[in-house]
């Protein structure tokens, strides 16, 4: 497979693109996961549809930057809508996410069918949006993705301290004078960017998975934010490249779902086997404690008391 990878130009482009996307989404996803906003990515990804269709309607162009710009605007608008809905405190955040996700998507669908009736052909096909089309990735797209990733990385490094505070203790951040609202908008903006840049390649559902899975896996191996972000980027990159390579082995294997399944497998592996937090380590620790307890002549622990 390695030889094939090195020789096949298309595969190389697709794998590099998927890998770059995975790395970008994985790294930015860390903040979303730590802030309990894992499903924000899902909502943003769906909310981007009307932006993509409108961008196409207004410009008539299908180039990646134009569509990404439209998607980013719509995703951004969706985020603001979520804030407006939860503002009054009457409705919980998950309700706001659900409404924005489905209503924006529905509106995008109306626009899309509207365009299709007018133009006749199935332009900017919906399948592409839903499941992505990694095979059509061009070298220029990969450069665009990498450039976006670079921008995100630079901004993240520049605001590292603020982002870190926001992720762990937003109230404290407020008391030491961090402009929390603005930093929040900036961080969410980067997440929007990381998501919409990948929509065309891996699609909606799968993009939201790429935001959460690498971060959740990385969390099992480290307690440091810096290490977690780097590791999540690495795992996301591996998922993207491996997914692209596997889907190239046979016909009719869509890239997006394979990427997600690879990422899911990495999560399952991490949950089971990470040395300190993992399920196996936990079970072994319990067994050891139980044995020591028995050897010390202890009976069953008193009712209601857990073995520490």
């Amino acid at each position: 497979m390695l030889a094939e990878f090195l020789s096949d130009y298309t595969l190389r482009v697709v794998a590099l693109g998927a890998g770059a996307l995975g790395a970008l989404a994985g790294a930015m996803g860390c903040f979303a996961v730590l802030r309990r906003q894992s499903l924000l990515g899902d909502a943003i990804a769906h909310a981007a549809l009307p932006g993509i269709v409108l961008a196409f309607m207004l410009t008539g162009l299908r180039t990646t930057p134009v569509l990404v710009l439209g998607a980013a605007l719509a995703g951004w608008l969706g985020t603001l809508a979520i804030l407006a809905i939860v503002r009054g405190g009457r409705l919980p955040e998950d309700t706001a996410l659900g409404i924005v996700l489905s209503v924006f998507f529905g509106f995008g669908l109306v626009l899309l069918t509207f365009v299709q009736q007018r133009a006749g052909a199935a332009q900017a096909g919906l399948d592409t949006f839903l499941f992505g089309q990694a095979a059509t990735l061009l070298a220029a797209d990969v450069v665009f993705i990498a450039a976006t990733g670079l921008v995100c990385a630079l901004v993240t490094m520049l605001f590292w301290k603020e982002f870190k505070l926001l992720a762990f203790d937003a109230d404290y951040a407020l008391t030491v004078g961090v402009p929390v609202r603005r930093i929040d908008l900036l961080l969410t903006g980067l997440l929007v960017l990381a998501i919409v840049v990948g929509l065309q390649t891996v699609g909606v559902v799968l993009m939201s998975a790429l935001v959460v899975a690498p971060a959740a896996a990385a969390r099992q191996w480290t307690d440091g934010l810096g290490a977690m972000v780097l590791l999540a980027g690495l795992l996301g990159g591996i998922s993207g490249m491996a997914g692209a390579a596997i889907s190239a082995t046979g016909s009719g294997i869509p890239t997006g779902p394979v990427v997600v399944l690879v990422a899911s497998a990495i999560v399952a592996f991490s949950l089971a086997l990470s040395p300190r937090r993992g399920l196996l380590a936990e079970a072994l620790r319990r067994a050891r404690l139980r044995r020591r307890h028995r050897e010390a002549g202890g009976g069953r622990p008193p009712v209601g008391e857990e073995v520490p």
Partner: protein
Amino acid sequence: MTSQDWEVLVLAVVVAVTCALPGVYLVLRRMALLSDAISHSILLGIVLAFFWVRDLNSPVLVLAAGATGVLMVAMVEALHRTRLVKEDAAIALVFPALFSLAVLLISRHAGDVHLDVDAVLLGEIAFAPFRRWVVGGIDLGPRALWMMLGILAANLLFLLSLHKEMKVATFDAGLAAAMGFSPVLLHYAFMSLVSVTAVGAFDAVGSILVVALMIAPPAAARLLTDRLGLLLPLAAGIAAGSAALGFFGAILLDASIAGSMASAAGLVFAGVLLGAPERGIVAEVRRRREQRLEFAVRMLLIHLLNHEGGPREAEENRADHLAGHLRWSRDFARRVVRRAVREGQLERRGGEGLALTPLGREVARHVMTR
């Protein structure tokens, strides 16, 4: 409108109402996004059941899909219980995996599965009238309509007969457990109901827009009332209205009916969010501005009382002095003065001079001593 259009309209309304009823509890229990997760995962159940029975119209598909939804909920809870990931992450990990598996299976066996992924995700409510239920040569109408009516009946039966239990379990799970019925059992029963509803609606409007119908009307109703008894009929009414609005919008634009229904539900919700009598954004902004003005009037009265009869009265108690002294904008100071005059707490004395009326003096003293 042709009779087919009428059938689609009726189906749209029935689907919307059927979704809104369990949706009320999803919103109240903060599980709105489980509807999204369930509606995506049931695709796997449909695909697997199809491989087994090889018939797209078999009721086994509906059962398998419903079971997958419940299984997904159980998986999310098991993952959450390991305490290695938080609940939102658990949801976001499980359903994309199940969904990806389903998409992969469909595309691997594209030859022998006549499952159109677009149709599954977006629904084909416009085609519902073509699939009819014929018994003994008598045409009883679209099959989808009968299925939805059945699910609606199941929803009503469940929510009416277990109204009290759901209420207690939703608002105070601890009390529910203490009273001797298992919140967990009830939760899974409810999740089965949501799954079955999602499967039924999914056929008509697709998996993503099910979420709009389940969440938006109950959320709008939630902004209008605090009473659970009112919430259910109100949500159902809003859902029916949104569905009808969406249907006519789709006809007008010649666009996707399901998408238009979701957009209409969103529009209605946005209207309520802005204009709800007490909790709407407009009402709240107005209330806040009112409070600010009222507070400013009291401050002005106290300021005037302070300097009344003092050596600097002529200088301090002037309208053009307020902007600098109380740090109000000139415009705001004018509004405050006008309001205090209108309420009879203040009178103008020769151009810019201000003086308290007896009423104003009393109010200021009352505020200060309270």
